[in-house]
């Protein structure tokens, strides 16, 4: 069954990069994009993706707040944070907001596939710059 993914980042060129990486895998499909947390929550409710790949620092509504709202309104949807914040504290806040996965952008090429596989199966995947802690 196809894993349906919503990609959320305020930089279009980063969304392009994520789509490029994600669409390359059989069984995954990027169904839509959003440029901020508010748009992400609206689209998640409409489209009920399996996974939301979500940046943290965004205008209008940041990723942590969007994560909380999406987890409430679409409980079946898992959140994978893909962020520049390479910080245990931020990872903790993301987990408390309901994220199942956390990947640092600078390691996205290394970790994204394993992260999406894990969270789409409702398993956690948390990785900071050092070593994946899955």
């Amino acid at each position, binding site marked *: 069954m196809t894993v349906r993914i919503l990609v959320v980042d305020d*930089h279009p*060129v980063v969304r392009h990069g994520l789509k490029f990486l994600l669409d390359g895998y059989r069984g995954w499909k990027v169904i839509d994009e959003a440029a901020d947390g508010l748009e992400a929550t609206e689209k998640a409710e409409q489209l009920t993706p399996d996974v939301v790949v979500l940046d943290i620092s965004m205008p209008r509504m*940041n990723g942590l707040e969007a994560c909380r709202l999406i987890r409430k309104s679409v409980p079946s949807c898992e959140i994978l944070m893909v962020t*520049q*914040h390479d910080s245990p*504290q931020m990872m903790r806040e993301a987990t408390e907001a309901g994220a199942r996965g956390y990947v640092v952008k600078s390691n996205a*090429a290394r970790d994204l596939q394993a992260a999406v596989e894990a969270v789409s199966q409702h398993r956690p995947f948390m990785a900071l710059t050092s070593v994946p802690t899955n």
Partner: protein
Amino acid sequence: MKLRILIADDHELVRRGMCSLLREHPGWEICAEASDGREAVEKAKQLRPDVIIVDVGMPNLNGLSAIRQLAEHDPKFKIIVLTIDDSDHVIKEALNAGARGFVLKTDAARDLVSAVEALQNGRMFFTGRVNDMVLTGFLERGSGNGNSASRLPSLTMREREVIQLVAEGKSSKEVATLLNVSTKTAETHRSNIMRKLGLHSIRDLVLYAVKNNIIQVRMPGSEVAQGQAAGVADFSAHGN
């Protein structure tokens, strides 16, 4: 013959995104990628791409320093600067360093293709505000916009490289290895810099580097305000 493009950005996601955008153009190919300024300069010298896209904020050697080195090596290199920062200082530095295109990262998906097309056809490309600045003669010599950067003592290209490496936390020995000089030479550069700039500690040097966009800043932890990108220099790495 295809237009050959080199992309330099320290974020792989951004490189993937740019490659994906540019490869849609049938007459273009990505001949190389680089993840820091030093690698960008080396690859550009070897491969001689037609267009070079350079991110400003990169470790090891930042984009502005890389552009200066490329322009000095061959003024015919066609360079597009990619940045999240469109402050007066960055724009002026980029254009004076030799860039002929200036694109904001937030607008890259919209503007990058147009920028490459422009440079391919021998024209310049600037996004909105930069265009206005160029038209109002910002780049005229002696325009005196009151920017303190214009009153800074002049540093050599090598000294700017050393500032970045030291501000990134590298020891004199590491600087020497990276620049292929002796440790003594690296230390001499360091003391010359401190003397020229009137600085008294590494912390001062880091502050100088941040203020003058030689290094970028990252903020720790949960200090994320809505709508703002993150960042703060990590001072813990630097003794005083």
